[in-house]
């Protein structure tokens, strides 16, 4: 049993934290890649900016400025600092529901990002800065995992994380493999960078060796069973947590668990050879649409349900 508002906040903490981490990785990879002036580097910058929905052409030419804005611009609701501030604000609203250890981690990241030294340490070494934020976020996850009860609240936190993750990776794949992609995506360097953006390079190498091909990259990020940032992995977790959270809701709510189960099955039984023929684009956009539907369904079932249905007789 937990307050609907609390579940809502925990869910958003998960989403914002995941988003911040993904943005850090994207910025870091882009910044590193664009130290070279090759065609591959240009592809990477285009992919990264498209994946975060940044359509500012000037940013293509000046990746440092783009990264700076992405990291520390408080005006921009989508920046890393804004995401972290929102995650922390949500945590503050449910301060009684998360453990002190978990709260401290998040609060510390927030204080670092908004402190007077943030801009300077970013300027001194942006890569190290972003790297530290990612490491701090890992500490946050670790503290949450190790200290919070793995009950309902925990499930909403993870639901937020995995839904956000499925959507973020989905968007990245859409930019690289979708029908509406702009420009080529074939350079070895670009492929490696996309793997890095998903923190997938090392697991990929173990699975496929250093044979890096677009088809395999797609297969790995979309359909791998064990890699935690593949969409299949994320949807399996979404299904797991929605099913567990729905357990206590009265029957008759054909809710999020049905949608999540269907999406999970789609990815579980997808066939790479068929995908090659039909084009991956359709599956990727199905994934993105279904994620939106699951999100809405979670709201209708757990948070903004109609009182008429739930009043005691």
């Amino acid at each position, binding site marked *: *049993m*937990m*307050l*609907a*508002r*609390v*579940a809502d906040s925990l869910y958003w903490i998960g989403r914002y934290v995941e988003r911040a981490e993904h943005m850090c990785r994207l910025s870091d990879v882009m910044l590193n890649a664009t130290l070279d002036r090759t065609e591959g580097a240009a592809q990477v910058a285009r992919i990264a900016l498209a994946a975060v929905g940044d359509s500012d052409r000037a940013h293509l030419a000046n990746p440092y400025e783009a990264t700076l804005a992405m990291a520390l611009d408080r005006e921009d609701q989508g920046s890393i600092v804004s995401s972290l501030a929102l995650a922390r*604000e949500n945590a*503050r*609203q*449910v*301060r*009684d*529901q998360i453990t*002190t250890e978990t*709260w*401290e981690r998040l*609060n*510390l990241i927030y*204080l670092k990002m908004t402190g007077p030294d943030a801009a300077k340490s970013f300027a001194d070494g942006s890569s190290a800065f972003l790297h530290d934020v990612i490491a701090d976020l890992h500490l946050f996850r670790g503290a949450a995992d190790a200290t919070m009860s793995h009950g*309902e609240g925990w499930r*909403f936190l993870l639901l937020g994380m995995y839904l956000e993750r499925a959507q973020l990776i989905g968007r990245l794949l859409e930019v690289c493999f979708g029908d509406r992609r702009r420009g080529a995506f074939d350079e070895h360097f670009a492929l490696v960078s996309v793997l890095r953006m998903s923190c997938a390079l090392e697991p990929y190498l173990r699975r496929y060796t250093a044979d890096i091909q677009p088809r395999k990259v797609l297969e790995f990020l979309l359909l791998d069973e064990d890699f935690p940032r593949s969409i299949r992995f994320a949807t399996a977790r979404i299904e797991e947590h929605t099913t567990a*959270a729905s357990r*206590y*809701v*009265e029957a008759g709510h054909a809710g999020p668990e049905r949608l999540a189960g269907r999406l999970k099955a789609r990815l579980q039984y997808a066939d790479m050879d068929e995908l090659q023929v039909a084009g991956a684009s359709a599956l990727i956009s199905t994934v993105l649409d279904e994620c939106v539907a699951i999100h809405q369904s979670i709201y209708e079932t*757990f*948070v903004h*349900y109609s*009182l008429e249905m*739930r*009043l*005691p007789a």
Partner: protein
Amino acid sequence: MVEYGVATAHISEDTATAPNVGPQASLNVPYDEMLTSRGLVRPHYAALDARIATLAAADMAERQRVLERYFLLQGITFTVYGGESSTERIIPTDLLPRIIPAEEWSKIETGLTQRLKALNMFLADIYGEQKILMDGVVPRELVLSAPSYRREMQNLYVPHQAYANVCGSDLIRQTDGAFAVLEDNLRVPSGVSYMLANREASRRTFPGTFRAANVRAIDRYPDLLLATLKSMAADWRPNPQVAVLTPGVYNSAYYEHAYLARLMGCPLVEGRDLVVHDNMVYMRTTTGLRRIDVIYRRVDDDFIDPLTFRRDSGLGVAGLFNAYRAGNVVICNAPGTGVADDKAVYAYVPEIIRYYLGEDAILPNIETYLCREPAQLSHVLANLDKLVVKAVGASGGYGMLIGPHASKQERAEFGEAIKADPDNYIAQPTIQLSTAPCLVDGAIEPRHVDLRPFILSGEKIVVTPGALTRVALRKGSLVVNSSQGGGSKDTWVLADGKETQS
């Protein structure tokens, strides 16, 4: 032992405020918590004083930094809203504990218990048969016309007659060293989280001294509070659901609301989480509606139910008061308790204690002039430069004139305001709060302090053996409210030598 560096600082301060007055005759010299008027360290402060003497200024500064970092990391902050941006600050917290010996505390404890018992009886009476008004002990119109009197509470059953379940009285120590009650806070007193957080912090800063001093534990406050709240629930509800009602994250005491909810293991609800249906109160959970039995509300009377009280309030929930009247939910503290901590009713508290308990008040009041009485009014107007005048309805250090510190014009203006509405004002002599050593800019200096202990009343009355000591951090200032630049420090209540810590 005497630590001369510290002692000198104190003496020079005393003589600065009261020149040419010897310590023996110094009625106006504030009582110092650590030093006697001859500059000797009081025995219960000896260990701390010895410890401080071994610390260099840099060590102290480092400890202060550690302390502040602890508060920041825990998010024990309040938000200051500026024009463009809002910043979070920690409540200024002083490193050095204030120490109260066992025998002094036992008097405070019995005094507070007596007082709250009488005030609860008073509330039960005025919201019931009103005997005390019939007997003319307290003027009828004073009670019935007080803005905090709630007609809606008339003849409503309150379990154990416990109206004020959580009370935070403000005590001060007068120049002769005796404690007196300055104010009773029976509505939604706050500060208990600072008491607990200060303790956490000072255990870290002075672990050895803390251990040796045999300080009484206060960490049971959350479960005592929960037990008190549960004792208010109806008998036929075997496992009552308690919830803490907060105005929300923008309230300056939000940290405290969340803190108490977390330590009690109760949900922290806002008005928008609640639904009243068929005179029952429910909260919206992920799995549907769930009934609430006891609401520890941290929202003022005016805002808890737009149907009964202020119509423009979105902080409460419509229908809550009717559910309360129907006996399906208990609101703690009860609405309408404010009438007993009204600044004019305050003057009658010793009478109230005598009326109900047949005892003299153990803790005295501060002498109070009621401007509603013509004779007292003229005295007040003639002595505005010596008195502190307070508006009856205001709190938090607002609507107040500190005569000796005010300009002639301010006094004249305030005098007019009093004449226009004498019922609304009371006056008290300027009180010298006692001073305690504080770390200010690297040096140890005395600052004025008060004492806010917390008393719980449900089935029985329990005084927590600890308190929030509020500090006026500005030199010479007597205002300790956090809204007016005050800070706080930990308060050590020492255990009797014989008994072990419970």
